């Protein structure tokens, strides 16, 4: 299982003079949950966008287990869900299949119905995104990401702006669906203590480099000195006030 991994080598991205990613090397195992943490604005989302192809990296390469060319199917979960607000939930979920695959109306309906039921969205299929709750929107976005049976789903700060209770609900949702569908999660988050509960690996991104890589347990037990300020919100708020 652990043999397959996403190999990132020398990934660099700069905007003008600002170096955001400075030759990043990272091996992300598949069939697990990896979380990239770091301060806001440090370039976590840029890393994710480079992985998904939304941004073109200046240098470096991403490959699957050393084998080039056959890149696994990726889906992307946006911070604000990025649902099409003039389309119903059903149309939103069906969109990737309808637009990309030659599929009969019947098969399409079957696949959408099955997925919508699994994500408990049956009652919302004819509603528009504006008419459903935030948590449901997340599920709709997840359904849209899952409809193409991706191997990897990239989550861009799925819990931004949510209260702690909702945060846990979203993390819970990600964990339970990951268990059920068996996809790889690469997530970007700055909800630091909370995210340790669901993630298998943590990568700490700072100043364009991966400064720490390991399991959350190790990180909690023996945090590297330079990470302490980030892990302890009190300390960091004091230092930023000073």
């Amino acid at each position, binding site marked *: 299982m652990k043999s397959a991994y996403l190999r990132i080598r020398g990934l660099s991205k700069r905007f003008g003079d600002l170096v955001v990613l400075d030759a990043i090397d990272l091996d992300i195992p598949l069939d697990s949950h990896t979380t990239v943490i770091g301060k806001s604005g440090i370039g976590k989302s840029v890393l994710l966008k480079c992985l998904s192809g939304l941004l073109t990296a200046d240098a470096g390469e991403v490959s699957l287990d050393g084998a080039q060319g056959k890149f696994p199917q990726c889906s*992307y979960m*946006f911070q604000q869900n*990025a649902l099409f607000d003039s389309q119903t939930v059903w149309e939103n979920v069906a969109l990737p299949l309808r*637009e990309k695959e030659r599929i009969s109306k019947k098969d399409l309906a079957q696949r959408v119905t099955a997925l919508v039921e699994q994500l408990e969205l049956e009652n919302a299929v004819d509603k528009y995104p504006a008419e459903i709750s935030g948590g449901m929107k997340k599920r709709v976005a997840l359904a*849209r990401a899952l409809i193409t049976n991706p191997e990897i789903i990239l989550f861009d700060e799925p819990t931004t702006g949510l209260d702690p209770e909702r945060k846990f609900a979203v993390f819970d949702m990600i964990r339970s669906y990951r268990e059920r569908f068996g996809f790889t999660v690469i997530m970007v988050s700055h909800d630091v203590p909370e995210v340790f509960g669901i993630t298998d690996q943590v990568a700490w991104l700072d100043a364009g480099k991966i400064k720490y890589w390991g399991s959350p347990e190790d990180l909690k037990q023996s945090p590297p000195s330079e990470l302490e300020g980030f892990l302890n919100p009190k300390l960091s708020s004091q230092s930023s006030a000073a």
Partner: protein
Amino acid sequence: MIGRIGSKGISFVSELGELTLFSASSLSSLLKGRHMMEKLVRAIYEIGVRCIPITLIVGLFTGLVLGLQLYYVLTKFSSESLLGQAVALSIIMEIGPVFTAIMIVGQAGSALSAEIGIQRNAEQIDALKTMQIDPLGFLVSPRLYAALICFPILTAFFDIVGILGGHLTGVSMLGVDEGAYWNRIYESVSLRNVRDGFIKSLAFGLITTAICAFQGYFTHTKASVPGARGVSQTTTRAVVLSSIAILSTDYLLTSFLLEK
């Protein structure tokens, strides 16, 4: 000062290049996408059907005013019988294509610019990319083709209603001879005039729709502020630039088309 003019000029030229590439790749992506007919129908509904009322109203009043104005000019030379010719030629060659295009930009162009701009800000365009759906084919291409269909049709509506409007003031109210009105039209308007009018409307349709879609599509880089105000900025710019483009293209095309 000179440096600033120079850099403005360079950015104008490069923007023109971007716009051209943008429209070319949108036009070419029609066949790559799926369910294009459905999107085309939707776009024709928005650009064409929705613009019928405004086109008819403006066309009618333009014809009425032209009938009135030209009557008083022509009556000075006791040549009222030329009214039909004057109204029809000015509408078919100039006013029809230009006014129709400006009306469609106001109604449909601004709407599509704002819509695409909001979709950009809501990351919907990025979402399409991550789903490997070509955003140009999905959002822009059907609208460009719809514009190429709708602009000439609406221009034809405008022309006919405008000529009827001129008839209403000239013949029904001011007493120009009905036979003279229509005969002067039939005799003076050539197929070439009609064709030139439609060439103009095709050009306006392509250019304005490309500008409106372009401004919305790149609202995140073109506007000086992000978010809702950015979209309002690019939408305004889309309408202003489209109007300028209509009138300057009209001048260019007129000078080319009048050349024998």
